[in-house]
């Protein structure tokens, strides 16, 4: 394979790297003297242009032959391409939201870090090699730690970043330990090779070494997706980080992590599934995840009720949603229904969830700029001050709660269906699905708490607020429209994903 074809396969990533460097260089070399607003505008435009170029490269040019470099170190197939496009779209929205931020003077570094994180995510989704997974995981995480700490004037930002970093470092150590155990078992870093070794091991009961490897890997990814009990960093980070950073952690990072989490589990631990059914509990990674998912759903939803900060509320809601998505990860295609891959529902869920939560953060950002806080009471009477913004928030909240015809409903619907049909007729995961449905009902309560503040409570502040900028309203509106459209026509994402899955043979 020539270098040219390697470049052809990795062109989107290459474009992104160049964009990140260009943003950095432009800001450091030419724009020191300019006003902050102009620098932000130029930086954001270069960033968006790079993302769009990468998207265009993937969508317009015909797909190169699905290929893989160095035994799964770097893969290109239609499914990965779709996930990358979604990641880039989320990146663009994050960059656009950042345009009005006023917490930093280091514009170039800030945008470059967002792009670096995005590059890490892109590499993360396009590999089936544990070494590569670890490296891109670290690239993403390190960028996100710095982004969390970026508001240097705010002590909460620093505290959140430190907690996030320490927790993440610990989790990374566990992951590395788990991955090295896997290497020890199989002698290979490729997921498919690992699977061969693993299924040989697990014929008669699980090997203790394998048990440790499973749990350690789950801990690493559990940290990335903020599942209980590895969620403790999330509320602090969501609350303390600058809003665009928090939004990116909640959206883009989730999409990439869940995708690779599912792939590692489904491909790498094939044959060590075990069973999460209550009647036939068998050790393996499925029951491990079942425990984590159940804990996430219960703790996330119950803790969210007690929050008075909307960003903490969104953090706990994210934890709960992580529990729902884990249902899809667990829904391994069973021999009884081989044609239904749970990856389709999973991708649909995380993409629409990313869009929704990004929109919710954008609304919070607008409110915080005007009232100086993100307490629930700061939202009181928002409907009178900003009807369009409030309406968009209504859509985001109801979608998160899973009200049809918004995207959140179909996400849940497909994920639950996949979990139910995974065990064939035995309905092994029924208890989890029942728990998930019950917990979604609970979640409606705290989403409505936000809407109650917006629509029913009278406004508390009397002074005339700053007018909203058209740009930020347009971004929020575009996100709300996407949530609505993807909800009314789930096929827009689902059908290409399903056909891509067929091509990829997952």
């Amino acid at each position, binding site marked *: 394979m020539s270098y040219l074809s390697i470049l052809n396969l990795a062109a989107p990533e290459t474009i992104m790297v160049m964009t990140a460097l260009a943003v950095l260089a432009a800001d450091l070399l030419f724009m020191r003297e300019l006003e902050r607003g102009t620098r932000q505008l130029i930086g954001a435009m270069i960033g968006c242009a790079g993302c769009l170029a990468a998207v265009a490269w993937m969508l317009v040019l015909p797909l190169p032959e699905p290929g893989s470099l160095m035994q799964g170190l770097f893969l290109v197939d239609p499914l990965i391409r779709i996930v990358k496009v979604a990641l880039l779209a989320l990146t663009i929205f994050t960059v656009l939201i950042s345009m009005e931020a006023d917490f930093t003077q280091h514009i170039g570094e800030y945008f470059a870090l967002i792009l670096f994180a995005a590059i890490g995510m892109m590499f993360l989704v396009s590999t089936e090699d544990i070494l590569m997974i670890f490296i891109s995981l670290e690239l993403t995480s390190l960028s996100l730690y710095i982004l969390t700490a970026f508001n240097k004037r705010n002590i909460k930002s620093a505290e959140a970043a430190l907690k996030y970093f320490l*927790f993440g470092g610990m989790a990374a150590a566990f992951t590395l330990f788990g991955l090295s155990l896997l290497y020890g078992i199989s002698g290979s870093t490729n997921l498919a090779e690992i699977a061969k070794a693993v299924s040989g091991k697990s014929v008669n009961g699980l090997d203790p070494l394998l048990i440790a490897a499973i749990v350690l890997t789950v801990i690493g990814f559990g940290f990335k997706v903020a599942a209980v*009990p590895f969620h403790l960093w999330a509320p602090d980070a969501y609350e303390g980080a600058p809003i665009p950073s928090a939004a990116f952690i909640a959206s883009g990072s989730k999409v990439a992590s869940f995708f690779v989490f599912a792939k590692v589990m489904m491909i790498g631990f094939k044959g060590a599934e075990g069973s999460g059914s209550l009647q036939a*509990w068998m050790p393996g990674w499925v029951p491990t995840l079942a425990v984590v998912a159940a804990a996430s759903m219960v703790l996330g939803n119950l803790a969210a009720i007690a929050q008075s900060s909307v960003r903490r509320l969104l953090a706990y809601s994210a934890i709960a949603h992580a529990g729902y998505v884990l249902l899809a990860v667990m829904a391994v295609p069973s021999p009884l229904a081989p044609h239904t891959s749970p990856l389709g529902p999973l991708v649909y869920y995380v993409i629409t969830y990313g869009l929704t939560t990004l929109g919710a953060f954008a609304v919070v950002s607008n409110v915080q700029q005007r009232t100086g806080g993100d307490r629930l009471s700061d939202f009181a009477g928002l409907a009178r001050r900003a009807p369009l913004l409030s309406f968009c928030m209504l859509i985001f909240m109801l979608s998160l709660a899973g009200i049809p015809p918004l995207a959140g409903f179909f996400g849940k619907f497909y994920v639950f269906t996949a979990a139910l049909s995974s065990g064939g007729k035995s309905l092994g995961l029924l208890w989890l699905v029942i728990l998930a449905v019950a917990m979604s009902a609970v979640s409606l309560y705290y989403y409505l708490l936000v809407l109650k503040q917006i629509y029913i409570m009278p406004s508390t502040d009397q002074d005339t607020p700053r007018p909203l900028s058209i740009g930020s309203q347009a971004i929020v509106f575009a996100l709300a429209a996407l949530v609505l459209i993807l909800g009314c026509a789930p096929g827009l994402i689902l059908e290409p994903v399903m056909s891509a899955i067929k091509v990829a043979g997952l």
Partner: protein
Amino acid sequence: MSMIQYLWLIPTLPLLAAALTAIAKQPQRRFAATLAIASMSLALVLSCIALTVALQHWGHGEPEHQVYNFRWFQFGDNHWLELGWVLDPLTAVMLVMVSFVGLLIFIYSTGYMAQDENFTRFFCFLSLFAAAMLGVVIANNLLLLFICWELVGLTSYLLIGFWYHKPAAAAAAKKAFITTRIGDLALLLGMVWLYSQSGTLLFYNGGKGCLEQTALLKLVTQTTSIGVAVSTGIALLIFCGAIGKSGQVPLHVWLPDAMEGPTPVSALIHAATMVAAGVFLVARVYPLMGAPATLVADHAEVVSTALRAVTWVGAITALFAATIAVAQSDIKRILAYSTVSQLGFMMIGLGVGGVAVGMFHLITHAFFKALLFMGAGSVIHGCHEEQDIRCMGGLRKFMPITFATYAIGMLALSGFPLLFSGFWSKDEILHHAHTWSVSHWPFYMGVVGALLTAFYMTRQVFYVFFGNCRLTLGKTTTSEQRTVAHGGATAKEHPHVELSSEPHESPLVMTAPLMVLAFFSVTLGFIGTPAWPWFQAFLEGKQLVSAPGKLMEGGILSVMGLSTIVVFAGIGLGYWLYGRKPVPASQQPDPIERLWPDVFYLLKRKYFVDEIYDWAVVGLNRRWAQACDWLDRWVWNGAVQIISYLTVVLSWANRVFDEKVVNLGFDEGCEGVSLGARLMSKLQNGRIQNYLRTIGLALAILVLILIWGCHAQ
């Protein structure tokens, strides 16, 4: 351009208008009105294009139903929920009627609601209604139809209760919503049953739809446990939905109360379009209603059970509501009962004559009833919110345009011969009822209904427009009493209550739509006369045969003659009772009341149906609720209380045991530990260490769970 692909634009335009108006601010009146009217005009243009497309297809003899179906989402393994829309003559004429009448009423509303504080909200709801109604019309899927159907019900609720601070309006809105809900429940059941039997809810889908040969044959051949064909069961359930929406007996009670809403709403929703949706639904699923006769040529003479039910319900409603209308004194209530009665006529038409007959009356009725309601609105407007016809009189002089157009509407509704549209459509129904093979009774009931219609309309016109003006200026009228009772809120809604000297003619923006409607109330009849049955031929997809000689045929001529006599008798009777010597004062009893006080009282109180329902349904419900409440309080709660006391006693015993026995020894140790913990927490004032410890703990627990699982095997 193939129109069928763009048919969805027609309901979407008003929907967009509604959405944009919803986020507009209260004072943006001009924006709201412009948007609503512009979207309706565009919808009308598109509807006209759709009609021409349908006409072309009729000419070419191409398939009658053009459909556009698409997959919405997948569920289960290989089930797709498909939605779609259909363009056929039925859809086309309904589209044009709804958007045209809707547009006129939108324009009229800008005048009628000009003073209202919540002008923008009104137009938001109105546009949403138009969108939902147009959605009902184009739906090619019973589910899509049902969704829009419910939306129509919701907007009806919102608009009836538009002046929600009036308790009567709020109550009427609730009544309308709940009463129609009974029918909707049956419709939902019918839909579910239909889906379970045929596996699709699409009406037409190239031979695979549920209204097409294959599915119908399957439905007809299967029988239920009580010996009725499945198709009949489903058809009857669907018809129940139509009964609720179209105000047929016994679910008619909500429609007269719905007149509490603003008058344009009464005209649009409760006269021209929404209440006709029930009739439209029956027409839409006519192949199912008529099965097996519509299916097999041998059975062409057999009248299906469902259609018999439709006819009888229609006939009873037509007569029943007409008698009540005779004794009402609220100008809008008379029209409301008249609407119920005319909807009954449409049902008769569907039952005895088929889609074309019922639909023809639906279309003509939409025009002249909208005209009458808007005329009534103009009268109410001109008389400073007076609605009691006994307190009007002599308005002919003050409101010449309103009078002229109202008279045209009244003659059309009464079925005045030859010139007016109502005559032709009603005559068509009576003619088919006359030749119905099952029974002659619907025909007789229809004739009596027609007589009463002519009579009560004459009565109303004489009360309102002739004689002396009995409008007492300065005296608090009924609506003003309401105003006083509710803290002047209504006065805010109608600043024009301040009494100027005399009744006055309404502004041009209100009278112009009246004139347009009056024009169509006259001319529309000529598209469906027996001599030139264009409308019927179009709807049934047949070749148009114009036969002027048919007018002179025995059967048709005699029915026409009979209905002419009936109309003249009704008008004459009305004139004799009310026109010869004008009613002198508003307090005097009605002439019929003097003749038969008991009968008049019975009719005036609407046969006590409301009271019976109140006693039977509401009362039973209340008693049942009280019984449940009693059970809850004393039986279940008692059990729960006992358990809770038991728990309390147990926990108390537990505590005693704990404190006196266990703790004594334990306390010492605990003291030590907690002292250590406090020391530790002083040393570690951040919480991150605890976080990290959690990971280790989780690792241990998860590994233990798995190992325990291994050993358990």
